[in-house]
């Protein structure tokens, strides 16, 4: 049964339209980042393509160059430090996202293995307990964590944010890794153990290499979640700033520097875009914590 040509055409038009609608905000954001300030703030009309593209916004935010006087708006102080320099923020974000990803995987893989391979009393309950952390409103733990970090000297440190992002990522990583481990037949590691390997050896030498792809996919998702996390970073830091928090500080009462905001925002999206395209295959499984396999 073949669909008639006009239905196929209609479907193409509808699909392209929907995709275009969903691409538009990102497109507009990227476009804004290469507009000169005059074009962004044009009150007479919304400027679409009628401007001279400039990389000024990227030079200021990503490379940390001082804004040229002509381009900077009236709200900018002249001279002094470039408060739109995003280099430190990018560094902080990378350290925190990579750190929490590595820590999450190391911690989670053990629990995932136990849940997949060992039977113990209350394992379903334990699984649910881990899962429940995924749904915890961060606001409920912020005040105690602020106190705790103050006492431990973890406020405004990379380690502090790495630890809380690990908390956020752990439930996702455990469930996801468990689902990848469940895909490996139990016969495989049992064969190794019959041959005399301890459980630890069969895990390290046989099972672990078989779930490399799953670990990579889990790691990418953890990285993206840490990279995009906002509320905990906002409350727990004032000196160290991750990208999402830093970008929101560019909105001020005297006027928002949309050029700089969109340039840093675009830079913040790019790595996540690239990473997520690498794990397209496991995305559904990752977003549903292994509940749905694509």
């Amino acid at each position: 049964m073949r669909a008639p040509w006009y239905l196929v055409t209609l479907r193409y038009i509808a699909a392209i339209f929907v995709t275009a609608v969903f691409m538009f905000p990102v497109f507009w954001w990227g476009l804004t980042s290469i507009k000169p300030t005059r074009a962004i703030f044009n009150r007479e009309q919304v400027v679409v393509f009628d401007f001279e593209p400039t990389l000024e916004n990227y030079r200021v935010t990503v490379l940390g160059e001082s804004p040229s006087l002509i381009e900077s708006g009236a709200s900018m102080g002249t001279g002094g430090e470039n408060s739109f320099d995003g280099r430190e923020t990018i560094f902080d974000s990378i350290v925190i996202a990579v750190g929490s990803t590595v820590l999450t995987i190391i911690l989670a893989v053990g629990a995932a293995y136990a849940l997949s391979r060992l039977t113990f009393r209350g394992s379903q309950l334990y699984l649910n307990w881990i899962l429940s952390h995924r749904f915890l409103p961060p606001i409920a733990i912020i005040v105690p964590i602020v106190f705790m970090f103050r006492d431990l000297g973890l406020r405004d440190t990379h380690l502090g944010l790495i630890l809380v992002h690990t908390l956020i990522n752990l439930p996702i990583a455990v469930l996801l890794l468990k689902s990848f481990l469940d895909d490996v037949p139990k016969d495989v590691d049992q064969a190794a153990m019959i041959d005399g390997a301890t459980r630890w050896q069969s895990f390290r030498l046989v099972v672990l290499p078989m779930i490399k792809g799953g670990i990579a996919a889990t790691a990418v998702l953890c990285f993206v979640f840490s990279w995009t996390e906002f509320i905990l970073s906002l409350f727990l830091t004032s000196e160290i700033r991750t990208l999402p928090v830093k970008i929101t500080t560019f909105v001020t009462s005297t006027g928002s520097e949309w050029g700089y905001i969109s340039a840093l925002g675009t830079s913040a999206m790019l790595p996540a875009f690239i990473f997520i395209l690498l794990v397209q295959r496991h995305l559904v499984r990752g977003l549903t914590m292994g509940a749905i396999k694509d």
Partner: protein
Amino acid sequence: MTETTITSTGPQQPRKLWTMPRWLTSEHPFPWVFPTTATLIVFGLYPILYAVWLSLHRRHPVTRENQFNPEWNWSRVFADERVWDAIAVTYMYTSVAIVIQLALGLAIALLLDSERRGFGLMRALMTLPLVVPPAVTGMMFLLMYNNSFGVISRSLQHIGLMGTDTPLLATGSTALWAIMVADTWQWTPFMVLIMLAGLRALPKDPFEAAAIDGANAWQAFTRLTLPMLSKIIAIAVLIRGIDLFRVYDYVKVMTDGGPGTATETLTAYAGKIYFGSANFPYASAVAILTLVLVIITANIFIKVFKVRF
């Protein structure tokens, strides 16, 4: 289970003076689960219990010391009209957004579920909103909603759907919906992806049988596709629903609860108490209330729709 007996057939280890207690060996779950459990207790369970404990204290208005007074905050929470407003806003936001996102997600999934040229690319492009940091999404829409140079507001003004004196985010009747548009833009792709996975996994036979029996596309959709997708839909709605209930980033970035308290969700209100008056015991009480409502609502949903991970 059989695992334990199998390993005992391994080669005999030479006798040691001290043998590891069994619960420290890799045969026992303890060493496997300990790191994760410890982290979740220290950074999850302990802070929650601490927040509950804190909510049972009264902050002295002058000395700012916390005195044990279990009724103080909780009687205040239930008498606080802003709390009731926030509960109403949160439930309204969650329920409307979940319906829109699910319906759009399902429709777009059906639309994009094709093997024709270009559809694979379009499906890949649809995933991109998912990785934009939600705070940045808020900023994107803040820019597009700007009343004097934002592309959405100016277009709406141009075609006469919106007056220039009613900025989208500063007008009580539109602000919450404007935030919901940003949320929907970001998370409808989540629904699309899950529904696509569900559609792919459907067996072909029932549809062929239905076609032979003369069922039309709508009948096939309502009688076959929807019932067979129900388990997946339930999981998707649960995950998305809880995230909607906890919404913070968009509200904080786009309106900070305003105008007035029109977009003040529970988390936004708790955050405001925290940043505004620094009354930590009261902020904790509102936050714990949020947590309790999440647990109750999610569990009702799980019971009714029999969701299982």
